[in-house]
């Protein structure tokens, strides 16, 4: 049996859980480093835009590639009778194609000459030299359209997010995750120096949709878990959100794996079989973006959301109530479990703390009262510390719970 499925179940009930929100600094730092690398490479190396954006000509001819292919092709270009071809880039694709990229050429005068020169060099008919040509002004127009597309798409996605979540903080967290994914993808392109083509751009825009969808899946569950949170003292917002992430973790992994597998196949076909072209460009952008989208929805978007929500006065009060209740419960528990050694109830907490090692059974519930009481005594404690406390107490509490604490869905609001 696959381990993942049983893990999935235990994640669902909260029986095992990873503290995504408590460890958020770790992931923020990781993302910050990645984005810094992306930005630096973007500034330092820039993006390599394809001829579609700048205008130019691209010739491809089948040939048996050897060590001299590039040099002899360069020479052939020099003798083609077309001026200003010194800047031309000659490269080989795999072992059976040679590629020549030049400035934009006149379609009726210069293209036939260059084609003939290339064909002559590799010994084929000029008609077999495939080429594409982009006029300089056309390239400018494509760039303009691409920028418009990007802006329109971002605006629309922001709108969809706003309408769907109807919550400024959720929208903000989702948007940040989105920007995060796009930045990382662009960064990879800058870092590795892949050529940016219209296909790349389409891939990039598609990522926006995917990233949004990933975030929707997680946030939906968060919403479900926090629906009645104000009227109860079971969990803080962060805990509810953390449970949601754990509950959808397996699904997120499955969704991402299943989404990425065909993209991997595309990438393989595009990069290995064809070498160049829209398949590779699309698949690469999608691949990076999808992985990043799954990562950001779990490690970035949800912690951000929880962090922002915990700042609300409501949620602060809730957190205080939850802490108070837990402190009370653990006091009771401590008193019940160590009846002999605790003469007075008012010192129960301290006693429970000092008894930490005494009873194995009480161990999981030991830490919370200790710190919770400390927190109760000092209201000005930094948020992060109380966070950790809460989450740990939740985690430990889960271990004691035999049943999932959330109500069956049928009993919640329809």
């Amino acid at each position, binding site marked *: 049996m696959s381990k993942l499925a049983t893990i*999935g*179940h235990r994640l669902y009930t909260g029986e095992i859980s990873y503290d995504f929100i408590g460890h958020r600094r770790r992931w923020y730092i990781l993302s910050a480093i990645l984005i810094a690398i992306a930005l630096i490479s973007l500034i330092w190396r820039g993006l390599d835009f394809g001829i579609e954006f700048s205008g130019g000509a691209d010739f491809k001819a089948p040939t048996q590639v050897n060590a001299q292919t590039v040099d002899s092709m360069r020479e052939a270009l020099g003798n083609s009778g077309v001026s200003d071809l010194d800047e031309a880039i000659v490269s080989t694709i795999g072992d059976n194609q040679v590629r020549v990229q030049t400035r934009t050429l006149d379609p009726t005068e210069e293209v036939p000459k260059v084609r003939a020169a290339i064909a002559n060099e590799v010994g084929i008919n000029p008609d077999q030299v495939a080429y594409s040509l982009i006029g300089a002004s056309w390239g400018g127009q494509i760039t303009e359209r691409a920028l418009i597309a990007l802006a329109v798409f971002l605006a629309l996605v922001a709108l969809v997010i706003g309408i769907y979540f109807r919550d400024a903080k959720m929208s903000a967290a989702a948007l940040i995750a989105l920007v995060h994914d796009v930045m990382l993808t662009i960064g990879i392109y800058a870092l590795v120096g892949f050529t940016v083509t219209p296909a790349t751009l389409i891939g990039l825009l598609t990522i926006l949709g995917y990233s949004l969808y990933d975030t929707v899946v997680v946030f939906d569950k968060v919403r479900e878990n926090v629906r009645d949170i104000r009227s109860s003292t079971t969990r803080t917002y962060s805990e509810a959100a953390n449970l949601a992430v754990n509950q959808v973790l397996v699904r997120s992994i499955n969704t991402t794996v299943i989404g990425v597998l*065909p993209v991997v196949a*595309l990438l393989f076909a595009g990069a290995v079989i064809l070498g160049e072209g*829209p398949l590779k460009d*699309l698949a690469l952008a999608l691949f990076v973006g999808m992985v990043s989208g799954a990562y950001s929805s779990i490690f970035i978007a949800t912690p951000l959301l929880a962090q922002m929500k915990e700042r609300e006065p409501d949620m602060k009060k809730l957190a205080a109530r939850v802490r108070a209740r837990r402190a009370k419960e653990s006091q009771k528990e401590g008193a019940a479990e160590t009846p002999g050694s605790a003469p007075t109830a008012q010192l129960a907490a301290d006693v429970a703390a000092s008894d930490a090692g005494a009873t194995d059974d009480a161990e999981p519930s030991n830490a919370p009262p200790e710190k919770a009481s400390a927190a109760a005594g000092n209201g000005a404690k930094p948020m992060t510390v109380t966070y950790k406390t809460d989450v740990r107490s939740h985690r430990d509490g889960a271990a004691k719970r035999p049943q999932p604490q959330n109500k069956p869905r049928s009993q919640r609001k329809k």
Partner: protein
Amino acid sequence: MATTTGHPGRTLIVLAVLVAGLITLMAVSGTWTPKLGLDLRGGTTITLTATNTTGTGTVDPNSLQLAKTIIQSRVDSLGVGESEVTTAGDNQIIVTVPNVQQDELVRLVGQTAVLRFRAVYAAEQVQPPEPTPTATSEPTQSATTAPSDEPTAGASETAQAPSDEPSAPASTEPSGTGNNKPLPALPTAPPVPLDKACVPADGQGTPPDKALEWQPTEACQTAFAEFTCETQVNDVADQGLFACNQEKNEKYLLGPTLIEGNQLATAVAGIPQNNVNWVVNLEFNSEGGAAFEQATREISQKTEPQNRFAIVLDGVSISAPSVNEAIPGGRAEISGNFTQKSATELANVLKYGALPLAFDVSEVSNVSATLGGEQLRAGIIAGIVGLMLVIGYCFWYYRGLGIVVVASLGIAAILTYACVVLLGSSVGFALNLPGIAGIIVAIGITADSFVIFFERIRDEVREGRSLRTAVETGWRRARQTILIADTVSLLSALVLFVLAIGSVKGFAFTLGLTTLIDVVVVFLFTKPLMTLLARTKFFGGGHRLSGLDPEHLGVQALPGSRSRRPVVPRPAVLSEERA
């Protein structure tokens, strides 16, 4: 969609009818393979961008349509077949021609239409090269009708020997028998290139108002004698020109431009009152009208063939009527032995020539058939590998439920294929490489719907429902999520389709199409199938390979069979961690 809960069998029959219907449609249209884009079978795509030469910036949609028709006929004249000319956006024309790599095509398509009125200096019958099947008009304009019965009539087609008439002087030999201008018989090769022969030594052009005084040099006349209709000639406005008519059975030595095409306001084909023959009515703007009156006055005084003027489009004389009198008022009528078709064609050509549009070759993309085949192969391999990976993962993770995934993806594949084929044969949708990529990416989107559904069923079982109930309640919740996911995907596909330029549009299109198909498959196939499977012993009973077994779900026994509530064991992992 309401039927999906109650009658799984009925829903499946609906789907079966849908699939059968699509297959029948394919059989009826007789196409079983999708229409492939040029990047998959080789060919040339040329994108032209029109700009308004009057400087107002906008391009009139009607003008663009007309330009499209003319460019189509230019491409057709190459006889390449299966070519396609479409408009895109508000100022683009896209020409796609399969399996043609000729540089000639780009030259022909990209060239700006130049319509000019020029005086005929000399005309000469020539042997047509070969009867071309693509000739746009029959020799219908060969007969003369005197323009006597129409007061407005100003010009009429001159008598020309029909191309097949045996009495036509054979003039393959270069020693020209110019109609009334005996040419020097010296067979000396022209010292300058043919089309430069008529440029005066000082290179000065002749403005329209002096055009009628233009006289060809001797070198020019020699060159004309050697000129054949196969020779390409540069059409320069203020210089003389060699041109042939469309049937290539008459060649002309023409003077510099008298009237530019843009001085022609409109051209309409019609039958005048009290007449039975088709004519083409021309209307000039005021400037053009004045020039035309002036020109016709002078020309009408001259003798054949100098009493004719030629209407030259793209270096070809599309009509060379003779003039009997001065035509005032900026209106003229070309009569001849027109049919409705030929008159309309001539009118269209004239209108096109008058279009204030200039075309710019924005993009040429040329894929050899070999490369196209390779791209197709790579696309198919990627599709198969992607499908196998997804199916493999689903079997590994969902065990027996993998069968549901395979069956659903199979149905989705059949529907997608049928839709692509039918869209190809009905609206000309051509599947290109980004399109294939869209379909492959959609495998993930489609399979994701199953993941959502299956995970929901499992959640329901974990919360204590029997499997049969879990399928139904899980479906109600999963349905929402699937619809939201598909809406997001469909929306982005739509926006991408609107915003994308060129071939990447194909990606957005197939992504949107397959998303819709995903909805159909999940609602009409996967859900009813699951309902039926939940009734079987293998799945409903939680066989250990079914993917719904208690161990797999982490419950001790399937609810509804023995124990009512699942009992969760104490977590060993955590206490170890804490120890």
